[in-house]
């Protein structure tokens, strides 16, 4: 049984960060989630069971997310303040439009119904195959395909309505997007 190389955490960091952002809906929560996952994974040697290292790390991240969400639900709710509003993403392409587009995308994914969201995150954000996603989520490949399809439709619809709203508000509209 292969052992997980801790360096895989560095190699797949960008992808894990994207998965975390898509699950949490917020960049700051995503950073916390990645840090917590890294700490848990590094706490002891890990062995890969039939899966590749990315699938293993995505599973670890998802488990940490579910655990932290359960823990948080038992705490009093906090209200977000203006200080917590995120600044625009500074990395990536470096273009403000691209940063805005990414934030809207993550917000749209985070707003999906849970089953659609987890399927879409596993396939489109993490890059897992349908089979790997089905193993991760404990369901059939056909169900994953269906959920990914529906999730994509809803994300594209959400982005389309966001663009129209911006135009109505007099703000810069998002570039046109289309289903291929």
């Amino acid at each position: 049984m292969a052992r997980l190389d801790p360096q895989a955490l560095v190699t797949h960091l960008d992808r894990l960060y994207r998965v975390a952002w898509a699950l949490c809906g917020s960049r700051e929560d995503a950073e916390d989630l990645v840090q917590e996952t890294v700490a848990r994974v590094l706490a002891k040697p890990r062995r890969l069971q039939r899966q590749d290292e990315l699938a293993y790390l995505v599973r670890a991240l998802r488990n940490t997310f579910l655990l932290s969400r359960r823990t948080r639900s038992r705490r009093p709710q906090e209200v977000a303040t203006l200080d917590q509003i995120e600044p625009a993403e500074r990395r990536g392409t470096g273009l403000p439009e691209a940063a805005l587009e990414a934030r809207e995308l993550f917000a749209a994914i985070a707003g999906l119904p849970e089953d659609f969201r987890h399927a879409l995150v596993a396939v489109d954000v993490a890059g897992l195959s349908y089979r790997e996603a089905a193993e991760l989520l404990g369901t059939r490949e056909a169900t994953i395909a269906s959920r990914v399809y529906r999730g994509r439709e809803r994300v594209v619809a959400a982005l389309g309505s966001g663009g129209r709203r911006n135009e109505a508000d007099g703000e810069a509209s998002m570039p046109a997007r289309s289903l291929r």
Partner: protein
Amino acid sequence: MMDDHAEQMTPEDDIRPIDPPDALRALDDVAAPDRLRLAVAERVAHAGRAHGRERRLRLGGALAGAVAVVLVVLGLFASSILTDDGAAPNVRAVAPVALRAPTAPAPAALAGGELLAARAGPIAFPTWTRAGWRAVGARSDTIRGHAVKTVFYADGAGRRIGYAIADVQLPVAGGELVIRRGARLRVLSRGATAVVTWRRAGRTCILAGRGVPVGRLLTLASYAA
């Protein structure tokens, strides 16, 4: 929650992966912030040092056992070098390099616009701009004593591929042999990762990408092979 009726509307027999909508491709441009990158790298390095200390302590307490293990390993190594061609890594071991992050800026394009100012022996890396790709970075690695040079490319949708050239003919097992424009290419894939490999001038060329259709890799490889 889930709408069970909606789930049944898609034919469940058809589970072939299809490309995500263009809108979702913007996700590939999002990188982890530098502070997170530094924090994770530091944690990984720290864990490596801590595990190293634990390992040394365990080894010190079980020296006799370790000697036995070393003898077994030496025996296995001796038998392996009798059957292996110089302990060269194989294509599957080298291909992940083409999926890693660049460590150097993209090489400049040479006059004419077809080739980059980066070579692996006699092979110059292409620009592939006519095919819709542009060089975005590079890295150099040494894997079991063999130099591997990689140039990374991105397309307009933000998808990234890596073209690695190893200075040796690497063994490759499995996969599917494809002839494209006369070039003999071998396709290996795992999950969303596709790898196309071929040999040229005594070297092994590897083109790899995640979420990039194999057909696009094959087309690029056929230009370079």
